[in-house]
C-alpha cells in the first residue's frame, strides 16, 4: 500500500505548489484522506490559497458522499449496501460490527476511534459482503472476519499492518471469449495508428461496429471522429472508470488485470484525435487500484509509450493523470464526470453541446468507458473482422458481464452479444431463477418468461450488471434497495428527479408496511412516468425503472400488500401518537387508536 504522504503529494496539495492547475476536488480528497474529515482550519487555508470562497468549497464537500466537514473516526468503515451484499447477510454483519465496537451505524464513536455507515455498491458483487476501510476494500466478510476487524481496531493496529488476506480482490475471469482470450501486444495499436493514420483507425472501428461499453452504445468511431473534427487547439481523452451502477464490476476487473490494454486504448485515441492529455476518472470506491494504475502508467512512460515523443515520434506527446471520485454515482454520467474532473459538484450539463465539441474546460473531449478503450486497442491490433466474428449485426463483438446474486460462480464473464439469458444462467450455475436485473438499478428487471431474450443493444442492453434472484428472494426488497439508491444518488438539479426519487421511496415504503391502496399504486406509476419523461439526465429518466418493471411484471408483489380501502393516509396515526404517550407516561387503551387510527 502506498503511504499516506505519497498519496497527498500525488493527488492534492502539491497542486497548490504549481505542479498542475489546482483542482479543488482532488485537494479535498487528499485532506479527507489525511484527517478523515476536512477540518475548518484546513478549509480556511485552502480558501486563502486557492481564492475560492469557503462557502463554495463547502458546497463541493456537501455534494460528495466521501467528504465530510464533521470529524469522523480514525477508522472509517463503509459497508457496501447493494442488494447483493444484503443477500449475503451484510446487514447482520454490520450489526455485529456495530455491537462489537459500540458504535451505532451512521455515527462516529465518541473517542473518534471509528465511524460506521453504509454506502452505495462498491463494485464487489462477486466477493460480497464487502466494505471500505479508510478507502481500502475488504472483501468476503464473515462473522470471524468481523471479530478480527474489531480486534484490529480496538488494538489501534495501523491499516498498513492489517493481514493482507483481508484486502484480496480476486481478479480472474470465469469465462473468456475472443477479447480476453486473444493475446494483447503492447504498442501494436498505437504503432498501427502512427503508421496508417487516424482515418484508418476510425474506419476500422466503424467496420468493427464498436459501441460504447457503458451501456448507451454510441458508436465509438463516430465519437472519435466528431471530436477529431471539432476545431480546437487542445483535445482530451477521458476514461470513465466511475463504475457506479449497482452490481457492475467488470471495469474493476479490467483496471486490475488489464490496465495496459486500457492505457493503450486511451493512447490510441489520443493519437487518432490529436490529444496531449488524458484522465482516468477512477471512482473513489476503487482507490485500492490507485497504486497499481500509477505504476502501470509509469511502466509505459519508461518504455516511451506515454509521455513525450511516444514511440520516437517527436510530435506525439500524451500523458494521463488519474483523478479520484468521492462517492457520487451521478459522476458516471459523462458531462457530470467532466464537471467533477474540473473540481466542481457533479451536475450533468445541458446537451447540446456534447463533450465531443465542448467537454473538459470547454474543449473537445472523448469520454469512453474502460471496456471501450480496451476493445478499441484490441480491434486495431486484430482487425475489424476479428471482432465481428461473434455477436449480432447490430451488436458485434462481446460484452463483459459482472454476474452476481444467486448462482454458484459469480464473477466476470465474457459473452458474445446475442447470448440468451438462459445460456448465461446455465453457464454461471444459477438454479430456480425467478428474475434477473440486467443493467443494474437503472436497468431492467427480466422475468422468467423473457429468459429467451438476449444481451444486445437491440434487445436487452446493459453496461454489464447481471444480478440473479432465485425463487426464495423477496423481489420487493431489491426494488426498494434500488429506489433508495436513486434517492441517495440524485444530484438534486432537476425537479422530477430531486423530488420524485424521494416521493417514490415514501410511496414504496407505504406499500412495504402494508398501508398502501390501489390509488397509491396508480400514483406511483404516474410519478414514475413523469420522471422518465421530464428528467434532465439518464439518472432521473431511469430511476423509476425498478418500480415500473415491478408493477408491470410482478404486480402481485405489490397487490398482495394492499389494503382493501380506497384511501389510506401515508402515516400510521396511532404510531404518530407514540411521542405524546411517552411524554404523558400513558399506555392505556384510551391512549391508542384502534386499527392504527383508520
Amino acid at each position, binding site marked *: 500500500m502506498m503511504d499516506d504522504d505519497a498519496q497527498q503529494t500525488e493527488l492534492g496539495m502539491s497542486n497548490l505548489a504549481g505542479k498542475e492547475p489546482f483542482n479543488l476536488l482532488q485537494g479535498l480528497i487528499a485532506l479527507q484522506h489525511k484527517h478523515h474529515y476536512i477540518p475548518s482550519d484546513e478549509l480556511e487555508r485552502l480558501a486563502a490559497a486557492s481564492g475560492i470562497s469557503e462557502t463554495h468549497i463547502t458546497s463541493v464537500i456537501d455534494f460528495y458522499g466521501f467528504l465530510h466537514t464533521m470529524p469522523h473516526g480514525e477508522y472509517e468503515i463503509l459497508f457496501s449496501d447493494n442488494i447483493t451484499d444484503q443477500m449475503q447477510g451484510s446487514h447482520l454483519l454490520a450489526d455485529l460490527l456495530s455491537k462489537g465496537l459500540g458504535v451505532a451505524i451512521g455515527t462516529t464513536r465518541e473517542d473518534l476511534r471509528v465511524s460506521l455507515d453504509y454506502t452505495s455498491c462498491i463494485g464487489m458483487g462477486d466477493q460480497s459482503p464487502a466494505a471500505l476501510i479508510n478507502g481500502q476494500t475488504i472483501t468476503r466478510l464473515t462473522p470471524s472476519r468481523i471479530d478480527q476487524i474489531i480486534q484490529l481496531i480496538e488494538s489501534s493496529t495501523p491499516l498498513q499492518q492489517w493481514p493482507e488476506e483481508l484486502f484480496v480482490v480476486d481478479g480472474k475471469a470465469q469465462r473468456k471469449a475472443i477479447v480476453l482470450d486473444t493475446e494483447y501486444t503492447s504498442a501494436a495499436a498505437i504503432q498501427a495508428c502512427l503508421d496508417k493514420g487516424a482515418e484508418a483507425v476510425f474506419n476500422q472501428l466503424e467496420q468493427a461496429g464498436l459501441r460504447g461499453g457503458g451501456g448507451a452504445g454510441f458508436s465509438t468511431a463516430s465519437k472519435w471522429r466528431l471530436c477529431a473534427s471539432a476545431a480546437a487547439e487542445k483535445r482530451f481523452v477521458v476514461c470513465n472508470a466511475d463504475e457506479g451502477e449497482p452490481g457492475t464490476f467488470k471495469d474493476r476487473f479490467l483496471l486490475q488485470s488489464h490496465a495496459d490494454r486500457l492505457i493503450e486504448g486511451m493512447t490510441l485515441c489520443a493519437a487518432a484525435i490529436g490529444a496531449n492529455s488524458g484522465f482516468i476518472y477512477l471512482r473513489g470506491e476503487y482507490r485500492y487500484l490507485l497504486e497499481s494504475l500509477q505504476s502501470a502508467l509509469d511502466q509505459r512512460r519508461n518504455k516511451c509509450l506515454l509521455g513525450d515523443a511516444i514511440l520516437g515520434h517527436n510530435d506525439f506527446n500524451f500523458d494521463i493523470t488519474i483523478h479520484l471520485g468521492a462517492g457520487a454515482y451521478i459522476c458516471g454520467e459523462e458531462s457530470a464526470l467532466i464537471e467533477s474532473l474540473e473540481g466542481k459538484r457533479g451536475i450533468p450539463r445541458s446537451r447540446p453541446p456534447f463533450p465531443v465539441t465542448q467537454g473538459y474546460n470547454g474543449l473537445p473531449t472523448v469520454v469512453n468507458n474502460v471496456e471501450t478503450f480496451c476493445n478499441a486497442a484490441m480491434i486495431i491490433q486484430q482487425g475489424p473482422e476479428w471482432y465481428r466474428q461473434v455477436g449480432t449485426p447490430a451488436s458485434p463483438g462481446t460484452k463483459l458481464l459482472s454476474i452476481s446474486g444467486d448462482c454458484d460462480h459469480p464473477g466476470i464473464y465474457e459473452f458474445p452479444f446475442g447470448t440468451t439469458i438462459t445460456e448465461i444462467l446455465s453457464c454461471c450455475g444459477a438454479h430456480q431463477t425467478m428474475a434477473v436485473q440486467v443493467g443494474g438499478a437503472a436497468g431492467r428487471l427480466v422475468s422468467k418468461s423473457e429468459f429467451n431474450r438476449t444481451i444486445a443493444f437491440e434487445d436487452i442492453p446493459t453496461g454489464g450488471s447481471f444480478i440473479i434472484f432465485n425463487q426464495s428472494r423477496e423481489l420487493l426488497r431489491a426494488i426498494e434497495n434500488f429506489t433508495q439508491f436513486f434517492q441517495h444518488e440524485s444530484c438534486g438539479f432537476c425537479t422530477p428527479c430531486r423530488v420524485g426519487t424521494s416521493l417514490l421511496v415514501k410511496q414504496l415504503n407505504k406499500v412495504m408496511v402494508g398501508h398502501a391502496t390501489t390509488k397509491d399504486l396508480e400514483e406511483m406509476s404516474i410519478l414514475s412516468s413523469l420522471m422518465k419523461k*421530464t428528467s434532465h439526465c439518464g439518472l432521473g429518466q431511469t430511476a423509476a425503472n425498478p418500480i415500473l418493471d415491478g408493477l408491470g411484471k410482478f404486480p402481485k408483489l405489490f397487490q398482495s400488500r394492499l389494503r382493501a380501502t380506497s384511501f389510506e393516509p401515508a402515516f400510521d396515526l396511532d404510531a404518530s401518537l407514540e411521542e405524546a404517550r411517552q411524554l404523558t407516561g400513558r399506555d392505556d387503551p384510551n391512549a391508542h387508536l384502534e386499527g392504527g387510527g383508520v
Partner: protein
Amino acid sequence: MSNHFTLDGVTVPFTTGQTIMDAALKAGIYIPHLCHNPEFKPHGSCRLCTVNVNGRNVAACTTPAAEGLEIENETHEITTQRRLLLKLLFVEGNHVCPACEKSGACQLQAVAYHCGMLAPEFVHFYPKRAVDASHPETIIDFNRCILCELCVRASHDIDKKSVFTISGRGIHSHLTINSPSGKLGDSDFTASDKAARVCPVGAILPKHKGYNKPIGKRLYDQAPISQVGDVAQHQEATDE
C-alpha cells in the same frame, strides 16, 4: 423562407442560435417556466417548460430551435405533466399561499393556476428550513426556495459577487449564502443587487414594504401569467 417551426400548430419564426423558448417568447407565446429568465443563461432545472418535439420531451429553454420542428406545448398530456411537476415543488418546500407576502405576484402560484393545479395531493415533506432576517433591507425565507438558481446566476453573472451557492445533493440541495456566518446580513449583498429582483417566488423579499400593494391588486390578480409573463420584469419596471 426558412427558420420556422410550429408550436401547437402556430408557425413561429426564429433566428439561428435561439432556443425554442427564445423564439416563443419573441412571438408572444407563453411556455410555462420558473427557472428561466431571458436575461440569463438557460438553466433547464425546473423542467416546467418541457415540450414535446417530434415525439421527444425536451426543455424548451435549453433546446435550440431548428427548422421544421413540430412542437407540442399546451396539450392535455403536457399540461398534466406540468401540474405534476408543480405539485412536486409545492410538497418539497413549505408554500403557504394565504400567508405569503408574495401571493398574487408569485410565479409558482400563477403557473399553478395556469396549469389548473387545485391541490398538491402528494405527501408533504414539511422540511425544516430557516428564515434569514439578518440583512437590513432584504429577508430570505428558505421555506419558499424552489432552487431555480436565478439569484445564484444574477449575483455571479451580473452583480459579480457570488453571494449565493447551491450546496448539498439530491433532496438535501439547498441555497447557501457566501459570508463568514452564512447569514445574508454578513455578506456583501445589497438591495440594489440584481439578485434582489429575480426571485420568481417569495424566497427573497424586500423588507419594510409588506403588503404595500394589497392582495387583489397584484400582478397576477389582474391578468394571468400567460399574458403578463414573469414577475421579475414587472418588478424592475416598478423599481425604476
